[in-house]
Every structure is written in structure tokens, then in C-alpha cells.
């Protein structure tokens, strides 16, 4: 089983990472995601393929770079190189709330039980858990807290105004 959660369910990961598109290479079939540079360089070629496409951002990339491409993408992959590095939280909110991305936003890297609640609030819905984590045990992390004060990708209003 992949150590993967999608929309709060343990799931299997259909997507293949793909790099190394050289001149004359044939494109793989199936659902692939490519690094941002690859996407920017070979967008048109990649779009001729018959299969879903995703883009992986470094956590220093501004998601605005792909805002006009989001309609053609089904996946954006974000990275947590260390659990303490929280830049992708902002990237996810921008993708969901500002640029209206409807596809999967996937967290990769140091994706751990105690982050899942915050990640989901910021609009991430796919989670490639770190190898030592247990996906089915981690599902309860989404519901450990039910009260949220501030607007995020899951709530438009702050708690104090929702009550009225």
C-alpha cells in the first residue's frame, strides 16, 4: 500500500514523477507530474499527451507563476523539506483561495501526523506521508480539533462571525 491519503481516505498513488525530458525522448503515458522548470520549458509538448498532468513547486516558488495554467493541471505538488519549514502552507492557500485551483494539492516530504490538520485547512488534500508514518492511523489527525478561529481554505469567515 502506498503511504498516501487522498481526501481523508487511504488511497493508492496513481501519479508518476517525471523529469528528464530530452530532445527526442518519448513522453510516458499515464498521470505524470513534472518540476516547474520542465513545465515552463516544455508546456506545449507536455500538453499533447493523453493523460493527466501535474506540476511540482519548490517551496521558494511563487505559485503565481502557474496561475494561468491551473485549468490544465490536475495536481500541484508542494514540498516540506523539513517539518519546521512552513512555506508550503502559504503556497497552498494561494493556490486554492487566490487562484481557485480545483485539483489535488499534495504535500510531500516531512508529512507527519501532527501537520495534517493544518495542511488540510490550507487547502491540501493529498498527502504522501513520510515512510515511517502509518496512513490509516493518521486519519484521526484530521478531526482532533473541530474548532477553528480564522478563515482559511476551509472557512471564509472568522469564528466570531460564523456564530451569528
Amino acid at each position, binding site marked *: 500500500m502506498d503511504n498516501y491519503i487522498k481526501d481523508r481516505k487511504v488511497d493508492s498513488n496513481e501519479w508518476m514523477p517525471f523529469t528528464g525530458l530530452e530532445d527526442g525522448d518519448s513522453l510516458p503515458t499515464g498521470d505524470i507530474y513534472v518540476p516547474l522548470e520542465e513545465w515552463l520549458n516544455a508546456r506545449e509538448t507536455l500538453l499533447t499527451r493523453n493523460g493527466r498532468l501535474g506540476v511540482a513547486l519548490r517551496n521558494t516558488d*511563487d505559485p503565481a507563476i502557474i496561475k494561468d495554467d491551473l485549468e490544465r493541471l490536475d495536481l500541484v505538488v508542494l514540498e516540506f523539506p523539513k*517539518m*519546521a*519549514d*512552513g*512555506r508550503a*502552507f*502559504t503556497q497552498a*492557500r494561494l493556490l486554492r483561495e*487566490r487562484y481557485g485551483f480545483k485539483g489535488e494539492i499534495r504535500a510531500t516530504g516531512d508529512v*507527519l501526523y*501532527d501537520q495534517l*490538520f*493544518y*495542511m488540510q*485547512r*490550507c487547502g491540501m488534500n493529498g498527502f504522501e506521508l513520510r515512510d515511517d508514518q502509518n496512513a490509516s492511523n493518521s486519519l484521526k489527525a484530521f478531526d*482532533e*480539533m*473541530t*474548532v*477553528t*478561529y*480564522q*478563515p*482559511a481554505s476551509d*472557512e*471564509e*469567515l*472568522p*469564528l*466570531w*462571525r460564523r*456564530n*451569528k
Partner: protein
Amino acid sequence: MYQYSEQDHQLLLERVSQFRGQVARRLKGELSEEEFKHQRLRNGLYLQLHAYMLRVAIPYGLLSSEQMRTLAHIARKYDKGYGHFSTRQNIQYNWPKLEDVPDILDDLAKVEMHAIQTSGNCIRNTTSDPLAGVARDEIEDPRPYCELIRQWSTFHPEFNFLPRKFKIAVSGATQDRAAVAVHDIGLRLVKSKTSEEIGFEVYVGGGLGRTPMLGKVIRAFLPKQDMLTYLEAILRVYNMLGRRDNIYKARIKILVHETGEEKFRELVEAEWEKIKAGGLYLKEEDFNWVKGFFNDPEYDILPDQDADFENLMLSNADFARWVDKNIELHKQSGYRIVYLSLKTAHQPPGDVTADQMDAIADLADKYSLGHIRTTHRQNLVLSDVQLKDLPALWGELKALDLATPNYNHVTDIISCPGLDYCALATARSIPISQAITARFDDYDFINDLGDVSINISGCINACGHHHVANIGILGVNKKGTEVYQLTLGGSAREDAAIGKIIGPAFEADEIVDAVSEVLSVYLENREDPEETFLTAYRRLGPALFKERLYG
């Protein structure tokens, strides 16, 4: 005072059981110490020299008597019978056991208290003016704004893993008693120059530590409706761009400094434009709702004089000294604000025993409408005491050793725990503060010196705020001996300034003499007794002081 809703309660209970789970996973080995560290730090739990230290949040420094009794109970049951009030208006316990912490959090939750975000790289407990709501120089009560910030920042999903810790302070008065200029964000309530509208002057990038810096005003007037959207914009810029490659360069002050004030402002304003109309835009109904928790109590209508009080002032010099030093005028006629000094020669600055805490809670109920405030100079305040009750209150405070007449005077020292408790310390600080207190314990001398601040830190992290004291002392380790650097001319108030090192460091047995020399230079050279140490120092410059200290 803010009253918890059912949802606020629910959140605390969920948080405690979540933390219980984390402790259990840690004890089973499912969480590594490194990963658990991030979780426990978000619950105020540090690993210290001898034990864990638990920091409990006191939102903007406001406590009910019932909460104070719970703090006493925790000190007694889970600690060694005392607690330590910190420079960020919180309380710290130095000896809790890891396995007891979930139970402590349960006890706290019963009185609407917690340790959420009192440490870790997240938005910390917001601090404010300890005289909020009662000060005569108040433009508007900052507490409703602090409460909105508290709610917005609690478990903010986007800003829970920032490059570094993040501290916000709010002041609502002409005088700054919240040290806004040395916070990551400082907000000062101001009146618009062109209308009657109330808004904020926004400071960003202040902080102490290794690289002390004063905050820059990045917006001279922010309408109050925009407070939270603007904070969100600042935090978002910081979360994306703040440095993560070097822990010593990770605070927002470095980002502002390296980006340049002007460019940083542009980044914030550009982000703000995009979110200013969003869900965090504050409406009149939001202000009405939150201000409802901070209405004035029903004050009695009283004359601003009292015969018994005046008689005792004339007949009892001790009482008169205490009134002179530790009492402040109140906005309401017939009421006074009382500072309880936590600075005696008998205890480390800021320490309070469980018995004292219980007694203070009783005094608050008896004399001050059941509330207590904590201050950033590590003292306590009873904010609503009737003039006629001052003699009785004084008697009770004296019996508790809480009536030392030294508020904002030379023995009202801020000190960090230093080498006695802190794993990072390079020198002791509490013994130095006690030696200074012992040397200058003569009231007439203290009185004559007037308003002056001494702050002591046991290492470069500057938890004791030595940079912003009129006289700052920093303990460092030089080839195996503890030596002390002297910094002069700092201020944490509305005239905020970072002090400058005056010269080579002093050994532990020389530092008190050095402070004494500095004070003598001031006394000999001031224009008149009205000229404070800081004003005189600014006029005189460092040369005279240097000459006296180093010849």
C-alpha cells in the same frame, strides 16, 4: 474580561487530549524527540537545565482571581511551590514533570487557561499595556484588539511553522507601557490626524536577542477595520521570505533590514491589497461584540479624596513612600492603580510563591473587582482599588512582602533566570540582581535617583531585555570566567532606544560598584532632581561615564 464561549472551551479540551496523545506517542517511541520538540514547544514546554519548563499564557496580562488561584494550585501540586512571572506577561513553572503536563493543562483549561503558542516558531501570546482600560492617558482600550488578535492567531494553520517566533504587542495610550518598538509587530492605537477615526501606527521588525533592533513604522495610520488583514499580509510575506538558512537571521527584523524598509512595505501593501476585503476585514458588529467583554465595571461615584488616607499619608512615612512609588492615578475619581512589587531582596525578580498567589487572589476579590494584571517589567497590578482602601491594602501587602516601594526605580530590576536555571546561559544573572538590590536598599537613595531601569540578561539571547534598559547588564563567559558588559542609554518606552556598550566588561565582584559609579555620575551631573537618568545621559553623552569607570 473576555468570557469563553462553548467553542473556546471545546478547543481547549480538544487541545489537551491532542497533547495527551502526543505525550503518549512520545513515551511509546512513535514520535522522535526532535518531532516531539516541535509539538511540545507549541504547548509552552521547554527542556531546561534541570527539568522541563512550562510557560502558561496570560493573554495580554489579564487574570481573574480564580485563575490566579489555579496558578497557585499548580505551583503547589506540580512544582516547587512557586512560579515566575515573565517579561511577556506570562507565568513559567521551572519544575513540572513531563507526565504531569497533560494534567496541568487540564487544570488550566478549567479556568480558561492554556500554554498554547507560548513557545515555538509561531505567533506568541499577544502582550499589552498592564493599565489597559484604566489609564488616564488612554486613547482607546487595546484589549478588544488583543482579543481579536488572540483568536486570529490561535492555531493559525498557515503561520504555525514560521521561520522563527513571532511576538505582537499592542498599546492604546500615549505612554508606551507595552514596549511596542521591540516586538516583531508593535501596534499603537492613534487618532487619525485628519478625522476622529481610530487606527494603528504599525511597527515591524523590532526585537532584542543577538541583533537588537527597533521596529520601523511601516504604516503611520492603519484604519482599525484593517488590523487583521494587515497582520495577515505581514505574516504571509514573512512566512514566504523570512530566512530559514540561519536561525540567528530568521526573525522578521532581519528580513526587514535586508529587504530594506521601503521594499518591505511595498511587499506588504501589495499582498494586503489582495486580501483587504476578505473575511478578516473587521466590521462594526465585530467591534461591538468584542468590546462588550471589556466594558467598564460599575464604578462607585466617589470623591477623589479620603480623610483616613490623607491622615495616614501625614502620619506614616512608610505608607507615604509606598503611595509615592507604587500608586498610579486612575481614570475614575476615587480609584487608584496599585503596583505589587515582585522585586525584593528575598526572591528572584518575578518569582511568586503559591501562598502569595492565593493571597493576591483574595486581595483582588476584596479590593479590586477580582482582577489582577501582569506587567512586562515582571510586577503585578491591582487596577481598581478605592482610595479609602489603600491603607488596609498596604498593610496586607506589607505582610506578604509585596509592598517594596520601588516601582520603576533602581531596584525594580528585570532579570532572566541565567545560569541558575537556563541551559543556554553564559553567566549568572539572579545573584547580580540580588547584589544590586542589597546594595541600593536605602529608600532615600532610591527615591533620589528617581525613574531608572536596570535589566540583566545571562547571555546574548537577551531574555532580560538588557539592551532597552537605561542601565543594561549582559553576562558573558570570557575564558571561563563570568564577566558583565555594561550598556547605557536604552529605553523600552515611547522614546525607545537600544543602549550602547560603555567599555570593557567587569567581573562579578566589580559590576555592582560599576553600576554605583554610573549612578554617581548621574547624581553629580544632573541639572536638577527632575532630570531623569535617561534624559541626563542623553544630554551628557557617554564620555563622563566612561572616564569615571575606566579612568
